[in-house]
């Protein structure tokens, strides 16, 4: 495979190859460098200082986390943990892998490191990760490699909630160097060793020669050097990919996919996403206290048409909070809110607006989600067509988010990222006394939700989820729209999978 890279890039790569000493046991084969675009702000080298899927993924690769969800095998697999089981409704027992070596030659991970990590998540002044750990009461070491996580209440979703976000860092390095350890001794046990962290620019990491996958599979074909290069503008990601500067361009928006089509040097990878997009109502604000109006909105929006004509087919209609890419999906719901403008008009008339109205303010995030503003413009027109008098607002994101979070936004289009296990966020979004964003209160929903937390049998638990989902579809506290497909552009010599959260496991990636 001949890379059509630009001259300076070739020069740079040549320099790289010359500069790096290859491991002694192998012949100096050419270094396989994989540059991957990154969009999330990379702001701090403190592994607990940010909370976003790409950040957790990065630190899972270098420091190591307990495990991850393998989206191809559809099961959780261990990274630093090798075994986990519920020993009673509020206690999970984890066993750490033995025989791991720290990148600097130090000892493998121990229960003490896990306890230390929990402490940092909770008490590091820079930590913003304490929410995913909220259900944990304490961690009790059993021996060097075994520990119990005790939850405050029964939490069947613990493994899914915790696994790939619980970054394990070394207790003794922190004891010696404090916060400086994150800068100068950023060594852990993961499959890649952090080499450079330039905030907002790039992260470089090199393959850990001592790493073996928990299932023993070979990592010989995975890239030797991985660079996460920040590129916020989608156009630039495409151009850099076509120019061979990057091997993996993530988050390709639908309108740019065509630039990658029918080219011998790049491939297009399409993954079903789990970021649920929805039209949220503030259920305590007029006129949305009236369920007929919420339903009228749901029937007025032609989701398949938007997906086909505006989103290039790169999205899947979502009914309720649980869709096909998510945990506990049990097939299409009995009743869904399909496009039906006549029904919508009838509901509006029934609610007292036979000749148009009510006047509503509709807010959208801009530049945050795929084609967000354009989607909102289309939705606004669809609502006008059934009679709503819509004023569309496109505030700057900080203001938008402040209003949403404080419950001041009556009706808005936004997404909720990484809902793989729906129990993570549903209580906060739709539970009574949850966040003020949606202000929904329905005793039946609350009851079902708390029941599923206690249900140990996965099948029964998913049946409860089916009921919860139907409540959300029928009562429309928010109208669910779709999940976007994640489109990734790959150079032809790269072979890798991107999971539904947009992340990947580098040891599985292959590069020629």
């Amino acid at each position, binding site marked *: 495979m001949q890379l059509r890279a630009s001259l300076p890039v070739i020069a740079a790569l040549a320099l790289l190859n010359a500069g790096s000493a290859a491991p002694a046991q192998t012949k100096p084969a050419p270094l396989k460098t994989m540059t991957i675009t990154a969009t999330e702000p990379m702001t701090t080298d403190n592994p607990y200082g940010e909370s976003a899927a790409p950040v957790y993924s990065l630190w899972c690769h270098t420091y190591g986390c307990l495990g991850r969800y393998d989206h191809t095998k559809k099961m959780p697999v261990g990274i630093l943990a090798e075994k986990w089981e519920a020993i009673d409704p509020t206690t999970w027992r984890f066993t750490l892998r033995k025989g791991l070596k720290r990148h600097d030659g130090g000892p493998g991970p121990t229960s003490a490191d896990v306890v230390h990590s929990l402490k940092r998540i909770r008490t590091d002044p820079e930590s913003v990760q304490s929410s995913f750990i909220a259900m944990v009461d304490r961690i009790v070491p059993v021996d060097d490699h075994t520990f119990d996580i005790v939850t405050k209440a029964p939490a069947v979703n613990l493994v899914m909630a915790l696994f790939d976000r619980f970054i394990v860092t070394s207790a003794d390095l922190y004891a010696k160097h404090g916060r400086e350890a994150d800068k100068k001794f950023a060594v852990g046990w993961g499959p890649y060793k952090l080499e450079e962290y330039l905030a907002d620019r790039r992260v470089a990491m090199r393959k850990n020669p001592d790493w073996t996958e928990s299932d023993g599979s070979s990592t010989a074909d995975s890239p030797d050097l991985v660079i996460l290069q920040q590129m916020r503008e989608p156009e630039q990601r495409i151009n850099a990919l076509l120019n061979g500067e990057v091997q993996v361009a993530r988050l390709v928006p639908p309108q740019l996919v*065509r630039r990658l089509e029918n080219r011998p040097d790049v491939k297009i990878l399409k993954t079903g996403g789990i970021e649920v997009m929805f039209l949220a109502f503030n259920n305590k604000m007029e006129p949305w206290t009236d369920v007929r109006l919420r339903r009228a909105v749901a029937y007025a929006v032609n989701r398949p048409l938007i997906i086909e004509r*505006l989103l290039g087919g790169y999205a899947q209609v979502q009914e309720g909070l649980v869709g096909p890419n998510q945990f506990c999906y049990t097939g299409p719901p009995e009743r869904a809110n399909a496009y039906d403008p006549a029904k919508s008009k009838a509901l509006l008339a029934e609610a007292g607006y036979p000749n148009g109205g009510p006047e509503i303010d509709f807010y959208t995030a801009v*530049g945050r989600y795929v084609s967000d503003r*354009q989607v909102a413009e*289309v939705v606004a027109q669809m609502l006008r067509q059934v009679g709503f008098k819509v004023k569309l607002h*496109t505030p700057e994101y*900080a203001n938008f988010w402040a209003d949403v979070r404080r419950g001041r936004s009556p009706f808005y289009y936004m997404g909720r990222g990484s809902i793989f296990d729906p129990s993570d966020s549903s209580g906060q979004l739709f539970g009574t006394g949850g966040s003020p964003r949606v202000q929904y209160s329905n005793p039946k929903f609350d009851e079902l939700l708390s029941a599923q937390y206690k249900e140990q049998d996965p099948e029964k638990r998913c049946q409860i989820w089916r009921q919860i989902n139907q409540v959300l579809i029928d009562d429309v506290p928010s109208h669910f729209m779709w999940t976007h497909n994640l489109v990734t552009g790959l150079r032809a010599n790269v072979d890798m999978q991107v999971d539904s959260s947009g992340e990947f496991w580098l040891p599985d990636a292959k590069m020629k």
Partner: protein
Amino acid sequence: MRKSDFLNAKFIIGASCLLLILTLAIFGNVITGHDPQEQDLMSSLQPPGFSNGGYYLGTDHLGRDILARMASGARVSIVIATAIVLISGVFGVLYGALSGYWGGFRDIVLQKIVETFWAFPPILLALAILAFFGQSLANIIIALAIQRWIPYCRIARAQALVLRNREFVAASQIMGAGTGWVVTRHILPNLLSAAIVIATFSMAGAILAEASLSFLGLGVPPEIPTWGGMLAEGRSYVVGAWWIAVFPGLGIFFTVLGLNLLGDWLRDLLDPKAALNLR
């Protein structure tokens, strides 16, 4: 070629450009039967032509008629640009002329205020204003005008500094002329050509600044089509649907070209000493 011919050529080309844009602004919506805001997803991304349901300049990603949007955009862009140039130009020239003419302590204080405004990165001021008061047309005008008076002010002051030591100004002062008289009679006329040059460019700059704000997601609300907004939205479609961005781009270009040529023509016309140049 005689000079007057060239002046006329400038006038003719410049005026035709602006006439073209004005025609578009006034009659564009008559030519096309479509509403600039009306979406039709089933006919999105239609190329320009005469056989596609009356979308002569094609449609955008939401199936809106580009011609209708060009016409509305022309009106909005003209309003935005004119308002900004008028507000900032009049204020900036007067401010700078007085500051330079007065000199001394008053000049220092006035220039401190200028520097305070100048020191704000424009994007921050625009953001702050749009964030507090919302993204309305009036706020865009305020946000963009609030910094655009500074070039006028700087040039006006620099020229006033030079002019106030000239014999004719000194003579007027000796003859007891007041500040108002000296500024209007001697300083302002001498500033006019520079101000016109800046104004013609600033008009273009205002249209472009609006486009840049759209690029950063802070443009005018979606209900108001502007050329800048169209250009910013069309950037993702350059390959495949060039017409979305190229037509508003041409609109901006012809407007700016027209303004500049007319500006030049006006400048030559206004300048009494134009005949005495190096030829």
